């Protein structure tokens, strides 16, 4: 099992690389495409400068411009209230977009049809079956309220696929036949679903701790149990969940190989503190809760500073969540 991974752009080796950042010499990965003189990248198996060179040759051909995300308009087919101001939505997308959203950690941007682009907000994917996409949204800020509060308008614009919804994605993908603890709290429950599916498919023994959080309901429990996951319902993460986790981390038999935290940043920090309290340092994957506006590394709203003073565009760049802790 890997114990540390390099900061890498999640779009490398996908059709979305090289992106607009490479066009303007702001690639987060290739030293040449950052304006440096010589190669100094963290090799992933392909050369982005090369990709860009081939791409530039094709640019004159119609339809071969820098690949941008798919944006489609779609009616909301199902809208169920599952908690206070919280709704589960279902809508169909194109097969290509649905395919792109299969992986755990996928997310989309959504806004009401007819609204300007700055109403876009990121939403994690809960599930995709065929071309039907499931998400859960809490009406909390101007953008989500605008999308949900208007019953007359059920037409939405969906933009995607985006991939960097989990810090520590390599652990989700590469942990096999191991013991994993998945902690899902509040609105961390929807993105926990694709994570749970991936972990189970990889033959892991998953134990899920589910807390209702502010939503007030642990709405994924039944689905998790269907996957043969051992579910522990906890009324409050702070009061019952963390002491239980600390006990599990401390015990050699119960200690997992991987901890996954799906929930707010406070939950991530609490889990790290629980590990520190019993002097263990387990690999951890955590959902990405950063505020984002464009998802393309352009707007800068998602930039976070790491402990070693680097700025990370969290919409694209994989980083260990613990890197964001400032002492």
């Amino acid at each position, binding site marked *: 099992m890997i114990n540390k991974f390099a900061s890498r752009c999640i779009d490398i080796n996908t059709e979305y690389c090289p992106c607009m950042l490479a066009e303007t010499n702001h690639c987060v990965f290739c030293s040449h495409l950052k304006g440096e003189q*010589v*190669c*100094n990248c963290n090799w992933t198996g392909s*050369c982005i400068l090369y990709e860009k*060179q081939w791409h530039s040759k094709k640019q004159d051909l119609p339809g071969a411009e820098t690949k941008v995300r798919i944006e489609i308009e779609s009616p909301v087919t199902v809208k169920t209230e599952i908690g206070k101001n919280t709704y589960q939505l279902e809508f169909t997308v194109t097969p290509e977009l649905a395919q792109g959203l299969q992986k755990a950690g996928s997310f989309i941007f959504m806004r009401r049809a007819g609204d300007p682009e700055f109403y876009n907000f990121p939403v994690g994917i809960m599930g995709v079956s065929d071309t039907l996409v499931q998400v859960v949204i809490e009406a909390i800020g101007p953008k989500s309220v605008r999308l949900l509060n208007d019953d007359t308008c059920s037409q939405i614009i969906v933009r995607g696929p985006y991939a960097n919804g989990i810090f520590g994605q390599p652990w989700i993908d590469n942990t096999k036949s191991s013991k994993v603890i998945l902690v899902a709290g509040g609105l961390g429950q929807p993105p926990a679903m694709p994570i749970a599916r991936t972990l189970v498919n990889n033959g892991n023994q998953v134990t899920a701790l589910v807390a209702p959080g502010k939503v007030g309901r642990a709405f994924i429990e039944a689905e998790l149990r269907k996957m043969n996951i051992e579910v522990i319902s906890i009324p409050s993460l702070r009061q019952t969940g963390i002491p239980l986790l600390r006990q599990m981390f401390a015990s050699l038999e119960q200690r997992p190989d991987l901890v996954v935290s799906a929930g707010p940043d406070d939950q991530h920090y609490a889990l790290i503190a629980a590990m520190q309290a019993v002097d263990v340092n387990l690999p951890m994957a955590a959902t990405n809760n950063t505020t984002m506006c464009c998802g393309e590394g352009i707007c800068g709203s998602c930039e976070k500073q790491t402990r070693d003073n680097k700025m990370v565009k969290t919409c694209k760049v994989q980083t260990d969540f613990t890197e964001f802790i400032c002492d």
Partner: protein
Amino acid sequence: MVRVVVIGGGWAGCAAAIAAAKAGASVILLERTDLLLGTGLVGGIFRNNGRFTAAEEAIAMGGGDLFVAMDANNRHKGINFPGHQHASLYDVTTMEPLVRKVLQNYNIEVRFQTRVVDTVKFGKRLQAIVIDGNETIKGDVFIDTTGSAGPMGNCIKYGNGCSMCILRCPSFGPRVSVTAKSDIKEIMGQKADGSFGAMSGSCKLNKDSLSKEVREKLEAEGVVVIPMPEHLIKSKTGGLSKKACSQYAIAEYAANIVLLDTGHAKLMTPFMPIEELRTIPGLERARYEDPYAGSIGNSIRYLGIAPCDDSLKVEGIDNLFCGGEKAAVLVGHTEAVITGLLAGHNAVRHCLDMQYLKLPRTLATGDFISYVHEQMGTIEGLRLRYTFSGSVYFERMKLHELYSTNRAEIHERVASSGLTDIYNRCLV
């Protein structure tokens, strides 16, 4: 026990590992690919012009193992070709296993497919290097022989793109400089027009793809010179200034196609479109062996040279030495071996708090290292390549009477500077 870590298994790295082992250290050699020798896998020419003197000096100093191995594995010796006298050609197709055996005899631990990605530094000392997969390898002293060529991004920016050369970056991952990862600013060689880097100077053709007459002559005599057809002379000269090896950037090589038998047929030009190549009599069916894309270009080198003094210690790090192309704008494996030997030997001296060995200027090898380092201080100097076999340094050798083909005389010179068998002495 003194633990020496050598990074890069080309000629320089192998020489450094041997010198350090002979001086009594426990040596680990890390190589990115699955083969030793690096660009030496497609080299082959030695003992030509001043390289004879340099090789004999190294032998007299007790560092002759690799030259003895090359001599034992040569296909031709004492051949002459334009601008070059008494050259030997080792067989590039069978050289590598022999070198492995030499290293094995010295109990050097070689780890293949082990690519360095980072260093762990404390103050001005290197503590460990990090390899792909995050394993760290600790050592008392480190030797950077990672070269200065490639990878693909550099070959696009400063050349014609990846030409699929023997370095095989896409398969094994790119070269990473230990010096650069230790935050030492590296020096970049330049072309005559001031742009960075230079293209490797020769290609290998598959010998079976040559006409029977050319192949037979090549195998019998070691060299074939074919006058360049009139229509090609014009298109070829453009390629000459991009060459790394200024000893071949002379008029004879524009007017003739020079082939050498190094196992493959070594073609003394950086690249040539295969359509043009095939208009040359005898080469109608020719195809490239290295680089595979010899039609479009060759690898770019001299993009990361470590600043170092004449003891080959890297400036700014107390326990890092360098050899080969990493140590200066030099060309050729004779040059790589003599700098590698010195770096390996001095690495052990570092651990024992001994004074570093500097080769005196009364020896060709000593004068070479000092002279190249002096020249690298100037812009003009960075635009030249240095080798015992030609160009400015061979002229200097002749001028200062450092050039000799008399074995006894060379050994006498080494003896009078008190360095006979210096590399054979166990220091630990």
